């Protein structure tokens, strides 16, 4: 949660210190924005881990260990900066997360082990999000208010006002974070979220984050949308918004911090649009080949940190190795784990109910005669 005004920062963080790479500056800057070195290193490390995890996933989808890959290479800056600043926990005192399908970086930033991601990718019975039922990156974690990710584009946007309503009523600083792609904002649900979160006298703490990668599968944003900056859709509602360079973690970190502060304290909505890259195409269905044309937030940040003397090439290599090892270990672990069995298929269709004469317990198929 640290930014340069954070009381947790130690004087050393502000003043700079000597590291293996020589004198380490206290802050990393981009234009007017700055980020403490410590935060920068944390963000960088999580970005490296996220990238390693995605690259492992792409490999698994090609080797057949997984059927399908989709994810967020190119969005690590946004996702990690967001994840690290989430106020995580269960219930309306904490943040609710209504995510898109490219948000591994958010979860890793929050502290989820890679293994929890890889298990879903490998469709194991141990997959804590869905028991091998859902696509990878379709998380569901009640203890951190991560509601189930749904492939149906944009439906998360109509749910966010509901959690936010409960949060406003509850009091405190919990907010609802809804993440959307750019093409998806053509669905009416994006607008519903703006409208429902700005009802006069009933404004809701919804932080909408649009990750604008310029594409919906094969279709460019510019070919379909007269709205240049999607965030401007907030204007008619009087909702505050900002559009930022999502490839610069320094900019992103601060923009997220500002937006969250506003939503947490004002209990009103905010739309943050981050311009991001899509480094491996849409998904494994479109080949998931690396696209070298687009800017890579991770490479850029690495260069910036090296140029600024915050880290050196050896340290980067070590971080990368460490991340790769973690991802490899996870892949090895899941390979040996149990897969769901035929008996698992109907489990969890219905919650046990004291007022249901047919399904007081779990679902067991169509209603039958009682013996």
């Amino acid at each position, binding site marked *: 949660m640290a930014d340069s005004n954070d009381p947790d920062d130690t004087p050393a963080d502000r003043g700079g210190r000597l590291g293996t790479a020589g004198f380490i500056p206290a802050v990393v800057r981009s234009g007017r924005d700055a980020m403490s070195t410590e935060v920068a290193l944390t963000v960088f490390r999580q970005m490296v881990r996220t990238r390693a995890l995605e690259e492992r996933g792409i490999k698994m989808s090609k080797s057949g260990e997984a059927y399908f890959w989709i994810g967020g290479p190119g969005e690590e800056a946004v996702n990690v900066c967001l994840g690290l600043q989430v106020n995580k926990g269960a219930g309306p005192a904490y943040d609710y997360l209504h995510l898109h399908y490219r948000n591994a970086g958010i979860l890793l930033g929050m502290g989820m082990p890679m293994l929890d991601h890889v298990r879903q990718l490998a469709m194991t019975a141990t997959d804590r999000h869905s028991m091998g039922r859902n696509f990878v990156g379709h998380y569901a974690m009640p203890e951190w208010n991560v509601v189930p990710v749904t492939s149906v584009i944009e439906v998360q946007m*109509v749910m966010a006002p509901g959690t936010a309503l409960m949060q406003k009523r509850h009091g405190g600083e919990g907010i609802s974070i809804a993440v959307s792609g750019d093409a998806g904002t053509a669905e009416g649900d994006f607008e519903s979220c703006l*409208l429902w979160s700005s009802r006069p006298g009933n404004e809701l703490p919804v932080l909408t984050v649009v990750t604008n990668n310029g594409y919906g599968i094969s279709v460019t944003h510019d070919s379909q949308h007269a709205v240049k900056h999607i965030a401007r859709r907030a204007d008619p509602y009087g909702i505050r918004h900002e559009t930022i360079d999502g490839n610069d973690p320094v900019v992103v970190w601060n923009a997220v911090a500002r937006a969250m502060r506003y939503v947490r304290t004002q209990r009103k909505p905010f739309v943050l649009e981050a311009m991001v890259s899509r480094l491996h195409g849409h998904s494994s269905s479109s080949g998931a080949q690396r696209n070298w044309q687009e800017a890579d937030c991770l490479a850029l940040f690495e260069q910036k940190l090296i140029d600024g003397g915050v880290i050196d090439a050896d340290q980067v290599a070590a971080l990368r190795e460490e991340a790769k090892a973690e991802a490899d270990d996870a892949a090895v672990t899941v390979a040996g784990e149990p897969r769901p069995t035929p008996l698992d298929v109907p489990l969890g269709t*219905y919650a046990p109910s004291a007022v249901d004469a047919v399904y007081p317990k779990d679902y067991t198929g169509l209603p039958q005669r009682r013996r």
Partner: protein
Amino acid sequence: MALHYGEEHLGVTDVFGEDVGPPLGGVFTATQGLKTAWNSPLDERGILGTAMGIAYAGGKPVCEIQFCDYAFNSIDLMKVAGNQRWCSAGAFAMPIVVMTPNGAGIRGSIYHSHSFESWASRLAGWKVVMPSNPLDAYGLMLAAIQDPNPVLVLLPKALMRVKGDQPIPGEPADSDDLGRMIDAPIGDRTDWRPNWPAVEEYIVPIGKAARVREGHSATVLTWGRLVPLCAKAADELAREFGHTYDVIDLRSIFPYDWDLISRSIEKTGRLLIANEDTEVTNFGEHLLRRAIDEHFYDLLVKPRTLMGKHLPGIGMNQVYEDNSVPQYPDVKAAMRDITAEPA
């Protein structure tokens, strides 16, 4: 009244939808005077999504779609609401209640006469109930509120203002008294507060049908608006021909009370399934399939169905409704027919 009980005793946090809050309290004034009732934007997708969000965050929402005819832009959300628990391997429950008026009988024309139960029955993960009288409406609504799964409460429009035979526990016997207590006055309502009677908990369990007439000649499976018509026909046919019928009011569309249905078919060997939804891929055809699966060799005569016509709508002039949705003479003729055929 169920919603009043729900907000006082069962933790209902939000009753909302288009025109649900003050001043109107619902197009059928069913939500007048509730303290948790509020008006929403005219956006069914927003209504369902918000209900889901409220449920995620620990609330207990009861939302309304003003007419079931207007739920068809949100079936994806209903599917998602129904799959959240299964998709998350049991981690997330989805305790929402959606209520909506259903079916024909109020001269609603093309866009206020649809039936939704056949569609709804396809939504795995949902429970779907349809009361045919005020007491069941009360008891099923309380069950719906207490059930931790998404429950759709379909209210037959034609029966919504009919007085039931049996009072709700705690309800004043005189309906004028009740009206004076809880109906909002015409005109300025700023200072008006409802004076709720102290009603009691009464649960109709989900998945329990009611045998509204008992007999031996045939089994009649029905629900919603046709229940009183089938009961009346059973009474008349008993008088006229001495035939007696097991008239079963399904009450729950899903899960349905297969135990009761199956035993009755076994007993009578004759089956009529009657409902007002359209006839192609009708929920009654599912029940018929179950009957064929398990009782083909028990059936003495060909089982029958009575359903609405496969047409794009129910027209405004009464001739349309009379000729596309089962009416009393159709019901009676079908019930007569099933017993008239020699085994």
